[in-house]
């Protein structure tokens, strides 16, 4: 649908005095038709794919003799099982190598652009797509990966899908969906020093739990998000799925337009101006009704860490682990080898991971470098610093951050999902704790028997220097 047509629809809302949410406006502009007593046919603007969740979808289409309908609207990258060292050499693991070769072959056969291993645009799908300008406000985007919610930072409806749905989008550029309910989380006030976007979202999830958002699309509102950079907004939206919400969105504003402007695949010149005029109509109308609303005070948020085996099990770094009598809670603590009521300050940590689609953008490495500068890595720590994309890796060098890391005893690795899900060789050994900037602390997520503690890049950097968890707030105030 053209921008003019979409602007007409927005005008109609005004004429009829209909109060719409950001989510409503974008969703409604993509409904092709409604099935009677059933789902809606939703048009998808951009489809991102990677090696792990696409092969079975390609196979299904081929088996049924169905062509890929809109190959130009698909972008492919290799990220989930790629090695983060020696990317110029053939991938050692046979199964990973096959899966990557399959992606290359499928993209070639179907005329899909692939930014494979070693390409200057290669990277984690949710890092490379925004930085190349594929992600734009008002779009619908999907990917066979639950952290597709990241792109909602641009005021985009973006969500993860299963492989059967990947095949559906291949075949028709559409999905059959029930419109989710709407949820708004507002955070207003002033954040304390050292409180990063990651802390804000870990705080929200710790308050709401891992399924508060199930069945909903979430909008984040309030001055805290308005004042955040695009990188910060992406970190927040990325973890929407960890409270069950299929996606999270933030209203597009000047920060958004400024970020998109000039990017490789972003609209240029008059076309860009025309888009901006439409994007400006997207923010939620005053008085629009949400199905559910939550409000938080920014001043109550502190640097956060998790102590359990789901992202909702988070505490302020200076707090003690809660005491709950429930079998699932106890099973979780037993896995982590923590006690009820225990403090995590001074907990020895041997592994630190800075990376993943949550926190592997340039700002995250700036935060880490800023803390690390002039200090030395603790001897007991093995740290993996994994940039989210080739472009981030390059910028780290341009800004000289690599020297900061090297002087402190750290080595940068090559881009990929890495130890976030440990599909490649970047696995945390059994029984070891890892302070990680990733998004999931599930049992075995970072390797069989590995124990994950989620945190911000600042807390991760501090842990890597100290070799243990410290109360970072003491150093900041």
């Amino acid at each position, binding site marked *: 649908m053209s921008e003019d047509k979409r602007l007409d629809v927005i005008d109609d809302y005004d004429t009829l005095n209909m109060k719409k949410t950001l989510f409503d406006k974008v969703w409604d502009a993509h409904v092709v038709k409604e099935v009677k007593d059933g789902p809606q046919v939703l048009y998808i603007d951009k489809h991102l794919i990677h090696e792990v969740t696409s092969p079975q979808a390609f196979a299904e289409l081929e088996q049924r003799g169905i062509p890929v309908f809109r190959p130009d609207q698909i972008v492919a990258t290799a990220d989930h099982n790629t090695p983060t060292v020696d990317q110029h050499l053939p991938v050692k693991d046979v199964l990973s190598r096959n899966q990557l070769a399959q992606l290359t072959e499928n993209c070639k056969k179907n005329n899909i652009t692939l930014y494979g291993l070693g390409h200057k645009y290669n990277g984690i799908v949710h890092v490379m797509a925004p930085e190349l300008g594929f992600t734009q406000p008002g779009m619908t985007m999907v990917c066979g990966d639950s952290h597709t919610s990241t792109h909602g930072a641009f005021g985009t409806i973006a969500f993860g899908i299963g492989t059967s749905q990947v095949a559906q989008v291949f075949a028709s550029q559409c999905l*059959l969906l029930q419109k989710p309910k709407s949820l708004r989380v507002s955070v207003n006030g002033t954040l304390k020093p050292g409180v990063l976007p990651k802390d804000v979202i870990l705080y929200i999830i710790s308050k709401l739990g891992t399924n508060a958002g199930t069945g909903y699309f979430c909008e984040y509102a309030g001055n805290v998000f308005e004042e955040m950079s695009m990188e910060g907004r992406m970190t927040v939206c990325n973890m929407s799925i960890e409270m069950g919400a299929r996606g999270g969105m933030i209203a597009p504003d000047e920060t958004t337009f400024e970020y998109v402007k000039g990017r490789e695949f972003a609209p240029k010149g008059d076309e860009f101006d025309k888009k901006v005029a439409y994007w400006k109509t997207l923010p939620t109308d005053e008085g629009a009704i949400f199905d559910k609303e939550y409000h938080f005070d920014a001043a109550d948020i502190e640097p956060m860490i998790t102590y359990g085996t789901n992202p909702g099990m988070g505490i302020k770094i200076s707090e003690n682990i809660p005491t709950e009598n429930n079998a699932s809670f106890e099973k979780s603590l037993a896995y982590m080898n923590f006690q009820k009521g225990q403090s995590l300050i001074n907990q020895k940590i041997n592994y630190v991971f800075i990376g993943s689609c949550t926190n592997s953008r340039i700002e995250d490495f700036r935060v880490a470098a800023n803390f690390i500068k002039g200090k030395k890595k603790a001897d007991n720590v093995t740290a993996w610093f994994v940039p989210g994309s080739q472009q981030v890796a390059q910028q780290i060098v341009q800004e000289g951050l690599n020297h900061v890391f090297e002087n402190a005893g750290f080595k940068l690795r090559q881009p990929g999902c890495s130890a976030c899900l440990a599909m490649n060789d970047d696995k945390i050994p059994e029984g070891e704790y890892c302070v990680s900037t990733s998004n999931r602390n599930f049992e075995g997520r970072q390797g069989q028997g590995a124990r994950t503690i989620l945190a911000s890049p600042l807390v991760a950097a501090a842990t890597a220097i100290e070799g243990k968890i410290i109360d970072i707030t003491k150093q900041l105030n």
Partner: protein
Amino acid sequence: MDKFVKLTSSAIPLPIENVDTDQIIPARFLKATSRDGFGENLFRDWRFQKDGSPNEDFVLNKTIYQGSILVAGDNFGCGSSREHAAWAIHDYGFKVVVSSFFADIFKGNALNNGVLPVQVSPEYLKKLLTEVEKEPNTQIEVDLEAQKITIVHTGVSSDFEINSYKKTCLINGYDDIDFLISNKAEIEAFENA
């Protein structure tokens, strides 16, 4: 896709909350390029010891529990979008998963693979778990047409929700691709509007 109309079976109890997709199928098993064989590694790290021998304490290894219905704790299937989780459950032989709450993406993936997610109240889930744990051969009837689940010997039943479109798909074994492709003219008209 397999059809699903009605099923009567004993069930396997898994009273753990927040069973995430990394437990259902760990990421290291996602390297296959076909949909087959994932059942072998269903709940891999709970089901097997590090040396590959079965963990006798895990319910799937207790031979007294058999059947094609999995009864699980709240918020089943949270985490990643990997459809491999639904494939693993299907491949292992489950046709129904019962819980008091399902994560969105998992629920959709299950439905797209002929596995019926049956959401019941926490109270009914508790009843079901108690019966099954007390008497492993307890028969459970799941009737999709009537949208009803029943503990056969007590007759205690509960209704469950499913959207009418997905219900029709399951009863007839249809999938969404056929439907979407049949709408191509409208999709093209939308693109050109």
